[in-house]
């Protein structure tokens, strides 16, 4: 009676951008400061 839906784990967008050295630029371009969100 169970219907199973497999979920696949992918690399997150944050990790992808970080690996490409583009995460800081992403924060800047979106006017986001994740540390400030915690303040």
């Amino acid at each position, binding site marked *: 009676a169970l219907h199973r839906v497999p979920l696949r784990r992918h690399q997150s967008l944050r990790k992808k951008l970080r690996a490409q050295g583009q995460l*800081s630029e992403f924060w800047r371009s979106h006017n986001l*400061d994740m540390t400030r969100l*915690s303040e």
Partner: protein
Amino acid sequence: SCNVYSSVNEPLINYLDMEYFGTISIGTPPQNFTVIFDTGSSNLWVPSVYCTSPACKAHPVFHPSQSDTYTEVGNHFSIQYGTGSLTGIIGADQVSVEGLTVDGQQFGESVKEPGQTFVNAEFDGILGLGYPSLAAGGVTPVFDNMMAQNLVALPMFSVYLSSDPQGGSGSELTFGGYDPSHFSGSLNWIPVTKQAYWQIALDGIQVGDTVMFCSEGCQAIVDTGTSLITGPPDKIKQLQEAIGATPIDGEYAVDCATLDTMPNVTFLINEVSYTLNPTDYILPDLVEGMQFCGSGFQGLDIPPPAGPLWILGDVFIRQFYSVFDRGNNQVGLAPAVP
């Protein structure tokens, strides 16, 4: 309320860290899409053939004219993200998820997707598993239609997120019940306090041996659509300091060599302790050959009337198998078996 044009708010950062996706198909013959199964929202949307945004060019799009079972509804919908609005129209068609076929499911066909987030994202759309009260446009959510059309034996679904970093082998969403092989011991059932998100009451949050937050009780949601654990910004700032995380390039991270000395973080829920150790809440990454250890906690202000809320996202669900019971409006949690 206005069903013709309705909108909901979703923080952009929710989708930056998403890692677990599944496949659904819409229409006859089926058109496939990769989606996030998100207990923190209640709409289904996928990119539309009418979408001209860069994000839609990077993803498969739904062609209504190529589906024999499609019917036009025509209402507009909008989801407000941090950097712009995802907008579209609502249609109806068969939606299939691993052999379960829902007839006449209303869903959003996005005609505009904002920003770079959805260009780079590996998922095409989102399938919401929250309560109907969260659904934009008065649309009946997929799981409600599954229950109404007697497609599930029991009105519940459950989520197992494997910790395997490469592909998350074994991760699954189960409709119609739960699988005891994915958890140890027995499920602890927690009443849903507000039927919108999967919202529950927390009795306290302990860092090491000290209750640092929520000593008078607070509210949290169990959300597969959020990857990290989030909380009120002032509390999360204290929590980051307590675990030794500091800001690095706009994020909180710790020295990977200090994991052994970091405290456990325990959520007290319905008189049961749910403990995360540092290897559970620290997110390792490799950057230019160097180890990077990001914090699994993130400040997120959810103002009243919905908030303040803590969000127990994938970082929590990876450790605790989660059952979402619509029949009894409760959430079941038990330690996940790796």
